[in-house]
């Protein structure tokens, strides 16, 4: 009787890649719900379109590479990329924005570089940056949060806007952002930055309507929601603490120090922590395993680098939010970080050689 031949080890811990990715999506849900509460139904439609386009494009690419499409889709990584990109863009962005972004992320950034596990850049962030640079108008049309929004769009109106770029009643997105007194509502980060550039001091900048008690209205809750998701991931050991801690340290420590020295013009750590895509970046984007560093020390360094870059770009750079750029720049540094943070192997520690006495 002949028996099955297999390679050792013959047992396995149960956590598989598709389950890991599924957990990531699951942990995003609290944040997405908060986002839809404050900023409307748009995010759900964006996710829907993104996921569809991602799955379609990935299966075509994998089929063209003569691999099993079912295999490739099974690991749920395309799902995560699509959802992250959909969350990062303005909820009322036209449908073709998310389509272009997703196509670029999946086809160019991921598949062309070699498929799962081989991409150098974070696909979602690379897609975001492409969109931001190519279509700056649509990509900066963020809506004000619900408590301060002049209009409240229903499900059909949101869908209509995404498809046709106008609400059924004929308003375009720019108009939706404008309050009754003609003020165009920017994001909190944008608003603070513009005010500082105009020479105002922080306390004045914080008077703007879109700012709440800690940071932007709606945005602070959004970040807390993603923080919750991040803690879920940590607890489930889906991600390790090194990148988030490095990230937050790299962002908050300089901002804390800067705020101490120049409190009138440097926003403090709480503001930075709860604005923009900070928590999303710390727990979901920077922790993308494929494009991050590999060793623990390397990851701390990687996270620190991202955090620092975000602070620098937010403070002195041209863009209000900087998570995407910072992540991409750090991705470029990963090979050298990996090379110099290799852990010492057993038996190679200096002083490990003993002379027998």
């Amino acid at each position, binding site marked *: 009787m002949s028996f099955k031949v297999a*390679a050792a080890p*013959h047992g396995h811990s149960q*956590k598989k890649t598709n389950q890991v990715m599924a957990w990531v999506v699951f942990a995003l849900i609290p944040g997405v719900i908060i986002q839809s509460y404050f900023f409307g139904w748009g995010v759900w439609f964006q996710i829907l379109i993104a996921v569809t386009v991602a799955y379609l494009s990935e299966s075509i690419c994998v089929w063209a590479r003569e691999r099993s499409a079912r295999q490739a889709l099974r690991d749920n990584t395309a799902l995560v990329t699509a959802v992250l990109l959909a969350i990062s863009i303005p909820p009322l962005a036209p449908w073709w924005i998310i389509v272009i972004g997703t196509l670029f992320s999946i086809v160019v950034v991921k598949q062309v570089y070699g498929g799962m*596990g081989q991409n150098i850049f974070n696909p979602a962030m690379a897609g975001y940056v492409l969109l931001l640079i190519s279509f700056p108008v649509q990509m900066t049309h963020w809506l004000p949060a619900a408590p301060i929004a002049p209009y409240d769009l229903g499900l059909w109106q949101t869908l209509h806007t995404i498809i046709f770029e106008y609400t059924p009643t004929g308003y375009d997105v720019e108009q939706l952002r404008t309050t009754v007194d003609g003020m165009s509502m920017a994001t909190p980060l944008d608003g603070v930055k513009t005010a500082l550039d105009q020479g105002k001091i922080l306390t004045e900048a914080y008077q703007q309507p879109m700012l709440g008690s800690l940071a932007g209205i709606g945005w602070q809750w959004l970040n807390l929601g993603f923080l919750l998701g991040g803690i879920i991931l940590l607890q489930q050991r889906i991600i390790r603490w090194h990148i988030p801690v490095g990230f937050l340290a790299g962002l908050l420590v300089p901002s804390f120090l800067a705020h101490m020295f120049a409190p009138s013009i440097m926003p403090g750590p709480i503001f930075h922590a709860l604005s923009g895509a900070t928590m999303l970046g710390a727990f979901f984007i920077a922790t993308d*395993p494929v494009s991050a560093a*590999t060793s623990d020390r390397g990851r701390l360094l990687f996270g620190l680098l991202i955090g620092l870059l975000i602070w620098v770009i937010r403070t002195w750079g041209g863009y209000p939010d900087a998570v995407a750029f910072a992540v991409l720049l750090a991705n470029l540094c990963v090979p050298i970080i990996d090379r110099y943070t290799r852990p010492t192997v*057993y038996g190679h520690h200096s002083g*490990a050689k003993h002379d027998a006495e």
Partner: protein
Amino acid sequence: MQDIKQFVESGQIARFPGGIHPPERKQPASEQPLRRVPYADELILPLRQHIGLSGQCTVRVGERVLKGQPLTDAALHQGLPLHAPTSGTVKAIEQRPMSHASGLPEQAIVITPDGEDKWRERQPRPDYQQRDKAELLDIIQAAGVAGLGGAGFPTSQKLAQQKPVSYLIINGVECEPYICADDRLMREHARDIVLGMRILAYITGTDKTLLAIEDNKPEAIDSMRVAIAEYDDIELRIVPTKYPSGGEKQLIQLLTGHEVPSKQLPIEMGIIMQNVGTAFAVKEAVIDDKPLIERVVTLTGECIEQPGNVWSPLGTPVDALLEYAGFKPEQQQRVIMGGPMMGFTLPITAVPVIKTTNCILVPSTRELPPPGDEMACIRCGACAEVCPATLQPQQLQWLAKAKDYPALEENNLFDCIECGACAFVCPSEIPLVHYYRQAKSQMRNQAREQAKAELAKKRFEARQARLEREKEERLERHRKAAEARKQMQQQQAQEASEQPSDNDGKSSAVAAAIARAKAKKAAQEDGSSTPAQPADAEPEQKSKKSAAVAAAIERAKAKKAAQQTARESDVEAESPATEQQRPAQDKSAAVAAAIARAKKKKQAREQQTSDDRASQSPDQEDKQ
């Protein structure tokens, strides 16, 4: 060194990085007392069951052997001898599939037990302390004791190191899931194990012995604690349960706080480690004069009706063990020799238990689900988290797939202990250890090929040098001969000029030379290839020899000619060069026969495509 001493004195247990906690599943097998397996119908004993060379077989087929009788002699090869596990008859000495992952065959002695179980003469030696250490080492070697913890290194060689030993560590950790052979041995034979430990301590001359047991074996701990109570220089160390704490390098790190330097052995640190099973075997060898002929094997897995530990005679086929324990195979059943982390699958169960077999595991798909398809590496780093050697398995995997051997060296692939922890946690189910094993074997093969190529190059160059040298020597000789001849001629010319009547001498010398040249030319035409020699060979014998050789070569030439004229009648192929063959008749007969066979074979090859012509045997043999 000092810090190791301090650490050990303090009794601390250090930690090693990484490690995993797979489900232990030692029960129900660990709760059954040891049983003895009856002798199977045939016992298959591979000549080599250890690291090192096998011995020379000293028995013949059909010979009757007694239990414990040595079957091989390893004296010359520094290997280990093999012994008959029971009395019986040697049924065969032949190639049998090995108990190895490859399934490759190797030479084995097959014994049919006769049921009498008759021992050879035994001389118990209770007084081991009276004996010389070298004598004890010889006894251990002659008893075939190898490391029973899994690697099978000859114990006597390990103990025979000339370096001082500060600590003897006895490894009762048994960290791999399912396996509980050492556990049962410690519970039931504690005193014997301790006696073995004393013998080992005596041989190594060490002051302190440490006995390490994992904390998931409370009964074994109690049993051993009682047995070592009377000895001050044996200390018990209980290590927390983690896989792979029982690995030699990891255990040393736990007990001493220090790492074994890469590519060095623990003896360099003054440490020797032996398994508890080996200690037991040492006691049996030295005190009871029993060679290594059986060992404890764990039989476990859901597809076995009566899991437990058994004393299995070496050579028992695995199928006999499974039958004994009640085997209920499933679809796609795996039969694993070893544990779930480091064991290998057996394609057939007709392979025997050897000295390094500690477990036969037959899992169901429910308890150990077979891995799914390999997915792409997502660089999650889970593998690096659990690696006890602090390697970077995902890097190693990329490099192994790319066959980048220099980079693998740089990343310390050979420091991997192949424990399987990385592959166990990989979310993409990549068979990491398999890739490393492949890469390691390819690298070793490459190094071997490289060494061989170096050797071939050296030999080629030496040969070129030799041919050059011989040519030079030949030219030298000719030059000297020519000079000598010239001198002789000059001398003769001188003599002739002094004594003109000696013309005949000169002309006879010349005539003799001419005669020789003629004879040589004649011989050459016959086909002889003897080179020109200075004038001192006996012509007659030479011509006989050269004639015989000439005849042989004639025949060969003719045979080759026959090949050219494709598949005609073969009788003509033999040339009738039979003139001067009387002295060399037998030889040429043999030669002719050989040529005939060769010719036959060549023709048979040629006629493979056209079957109509049967190869006819030439009847030269009758002719001579």
